[in-house]
């Protein structure tokens, strides 16, 4: 398929703008643009057709089942798209006076209250733009909290080896030092390893619970005693919150700071990579350090008024413009109001679905931790690799031929040939069964027709793409007349990276 730039012809144009009969503005010559940007030149029909074709070459949750582990690819209700487009939300300027933004501020305040209840914590800032920004914000809060207490020597953050890559990357961005802790044979944090690593230099823990193995840490109460006993804080990576809404709250588990991925648990559509939302909820003791402005309510009932509070002298500052990604808040608020207290049922069904798929697949694939799972689980294709030379990547590519998006693969790192499967709560049993049937058929194919898997996918717009070549040549923009022509490299070396895909 051609690039939009390759469809461009000089003189075509889709836009018309208002014309005013005014004298032109002046720009000093040295600041005036010399060579126009080579933007596409198309009339409207081709603009629509081009991007529609790109849509047909993209697989979304609307297209089909998407069990990408740790990504919580659930149905995105369409009413949320309707309400976010109400002019009172869509066309509201973020610097509008508080008097002219009472509805928006009330919505933000209400969402804060809901997230405090769901997480079991006291105060919420909606500002972080995504989960990873919530993480770095949470670490900044730790730094500010300990500085305020005169405990600036606390420089270490403890992270288990199952953690998302964002956790260690956030630790570096926040200027902390990373301390790794192992996972034990049941998939919990190894307490013996942990005890030797928590002390007066520890600022805190970052933990996903249930973990990226889809397992609830059975020692969470002891973990809390270890960290709080050492005067350290606990950060909860909310990537897996979909497992525990109304069932177990991070605040009750002992966590002091939590981020919530609104684009996972609360249904903000993921848009091919974003937007997201990463609000953080904290215990009362950390509230003074939250980003500004805070959204606060004065008075109650009919006379309630909402305002932005910038008067927070201990605040860490700002991590993003304004109050955060407001449109994401509208969708997530609408989503939660559609459930009400039945949010618990959402998590129950997510866990039921995951355990059902696990039960159907665990004989055909290796199960590294033989326990009931929470909302997701991790299988290993190690048996297929050993017996037939078939990798997790081959299984993933073959699933495409059956019409399913593959699960997350090669993550978490503690499981070789990992297949991380998260069905979510919104699927029918028929869909889950069809997926299981496909996975079982693939395990049989691995034995009977392994080439079928190694050459998969067979029915997508492109076959397996050469990731090694892409990294080597680094062609990251169209080069117009000078655009290089790539050809296939004649080699038998693997051309795909056995690196994490998903989560």
């Amino acid at each position, binding site marked *: 398929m051609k690039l939009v730039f390759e469809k461009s012809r000089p003189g075509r144009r889709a836009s018309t*703008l208002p014309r005013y009969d005014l004298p032109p503005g002046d720009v000093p010559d040295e600041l005036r643009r010399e060579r126009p940007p080579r933007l596409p030149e198309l009339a409207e029909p081709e603009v629509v057709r081009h991007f529609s074709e790109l849509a047909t070459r993209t697989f979304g949750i609307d297209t089909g089942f998407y069990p990408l582990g740790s990504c919580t690819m659930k149905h995105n209700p369409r009413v949320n798209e309707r309400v976010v487009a109400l002019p009172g939300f869509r066309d509201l300027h973020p610097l509008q006076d508080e008097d002219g933004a009472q509805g928006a501020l009330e919505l933000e305040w209400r969402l804060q209250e809901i997230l405090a209840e769901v997480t079991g914590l006291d105060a919420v800032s909606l500002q972080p733009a995504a989960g*990873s920004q919530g993480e770095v914000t949470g670490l900044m809060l730790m730094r500010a909290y300990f500085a305020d207490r005169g405990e600036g020597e606390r420089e270490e953050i403890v992270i288990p080896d199952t953690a998302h890559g964002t956790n260690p990357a956030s630790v570096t961005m926040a200027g902390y030092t990373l301390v790794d802790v192992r996972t034990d044979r049941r998939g919990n944090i190894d307490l013996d390893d942990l005890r030797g690593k928590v002390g007066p230099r520890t600022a805190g823990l970052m933990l996903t619970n249930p973990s990226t193995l889809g397992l609830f840490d059975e020692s969470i109460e002891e973990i809390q005693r270890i960290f709080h006993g050492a005067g350290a804080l606990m950060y909860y990576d909310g990537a897996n919150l979909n497992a525990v809404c109304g069932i177990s709250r991070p605040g009750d588990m002992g966590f002091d700071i939590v981020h919530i991925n609104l684009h996972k648990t609360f249904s903000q559509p993921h848009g091919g990579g974003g937007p997201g939302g990463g609000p953080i909820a904290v215990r009362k003791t950390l509230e003074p350090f939250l980003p500004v402005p805070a959204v606060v309510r004065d008075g109650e009932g009919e006379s309630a008024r909402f305002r932005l509070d910038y008067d927070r002298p201990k605040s860490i500052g*700002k991590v993003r413009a304004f109050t955060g990604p407001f449109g994401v808040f509208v969708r997530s608020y609408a989503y939660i*109001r559609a*459930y009400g207290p039945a949010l618990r049922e959402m998590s129950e069904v997510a866990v039921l679905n995951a355990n059902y798929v696990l039960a159907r697949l665990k004989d055909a694939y290796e199960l590294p931790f033989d326990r009931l799972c929470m909302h997701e689980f991790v299988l290993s294709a190690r048996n297929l690799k050993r017996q037939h030379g078939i990798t997790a990547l081959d299984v993933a590519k073959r699933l495409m031929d059956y019409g399913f998006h593959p699960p997350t693969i090669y993550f978490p790192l503690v499981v070789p040939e990992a297949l991380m499967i998260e069905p979510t709560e919104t699927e029918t049993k028929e869909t889950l069964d069809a997926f299981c049937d496909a996975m079982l058929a693939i395990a049989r194919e691995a034995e009977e027709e392994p080439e079928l898997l190694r050459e998969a996918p067979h029915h997508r717009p492109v076959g397996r793409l050469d990731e090694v070549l892409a990294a080597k040549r680094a062609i990251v923009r169209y080069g117009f007349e000078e655009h290089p022509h790539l050809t296939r490299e004649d080699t038998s070396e693997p051309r795909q990276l056995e690196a994490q895909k998903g989560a």
Partner: protein
Amino acid sequence: MTRFLSLTEADREEMLEAIGVTSVDELFEQIPLGVRFDRELALEPALSEPELVTHLEELAARNAHTGAELSFLGAGIYDHYVPAVVDAILSRGELLTAYTPYQPEMSQGVLQAIFEYQTAVCELTGMDVSNASGYDGTTVAADACFLAKHATGRSKVVLAEALNPQVRQVVKTYAPGFGLEVTEVPHRGGITDPDELREAAQDAASVIFQQPNFFGCLEPAVDLAAAANEAEALPVAHVDPISLGVLEAPGAYGCALAIGEGQGAGNYQSYGGPHYGFIAARSEFIRRMPGRIVGETVDAAGKRGYVLTLQTREQHIRREKATSNITTNQTLLALAGLVYLSWLGPEGLREMGETCLALGRYARERLQQAGLEPVFPERTTFKEFAVRVGRPAAEVVTEARRKGVHPGYALGRDYQGLDDALLVCVTERRTQADVDRLATVLAEVATT
């Protein structure tokens, strides 16, 4: 049973049996009793879809949006027209509901769109490489500082005071974690002095200035970039994409990086987000870029395709040594930007810039006739300009709004000595008649 769940009672029974448990509660026995939640969540009762829409309509109705109130607010977020094609493409379910394109054979459409977006951003800014988007126009500035620190080994960054205050605040919030010291260079009569900037840039990793700056004034950008380069600090221009049909591209005057807020190009104001930030650089910084980058490749049959590439920069491979922790970005909003720029085309972008310039000039002159003096009379401005209102500007805003006009942003909150200054923004959506009405209202409520 809620409307987003599909299991029947019979399904549940069969599934529990297959798992080998008798109830859903049994699945949760791995959670220690002490941390199980033993009451119902205290949330308001569920709303049916019609009730939900009514409730949200009531909240929306209490917001004075730019379709209901004549507004001259800008200051970083702009009421530019969003064409119907943008809404149409963004409502395509495949694009709306896809995840990050980890499996390229499933996601050629979104990968190609990102490759095209990267190309458009490079063309606008005169750069060689762009990522797939950052969170917004503030966080990309922090990204640029992190990149510059590691590229130069220096631990200071310089910000022009005329750079958007929220951008500066975000950089200052991130700086301690990055191990960076932040220095600010004051504006002189609305613009930055290149000599002062050169002085401040000694030993600095980077210098960030904004073009047009927060006051709408055109900075001597060529001289500022040269001053930074002379001090061997990386010059970073924070630019308005809408201006780049008429204003020179940062790559053409020696900048190392170009960053900015994309909202004005294709996104609604949406009370501040979600929008997209862009970050583009010269090719020498490609392996230090934050976040997702899409590259071209071929499949086993030699057919062209696109993949996420150079991933050894990223958190999921490099972990604590990554160039950033970003994973989720703003792809859908960046796609809106690409559709918008495809709609506008190069000629449309130029025309848009000329229209903003001309309307801005008309508004400045019209307000001056009404007795409102520009704060920086010597300066050329684009789309925005500051005027004196003779009394606290925040009060003028309140009174003008009673007359149905939001006259702009009161600058006093961010700049000392500008309590009586208002930042007025005129996009192509404001007509001459709108500007005339603003002049009339301000003449009534300002002290002239």
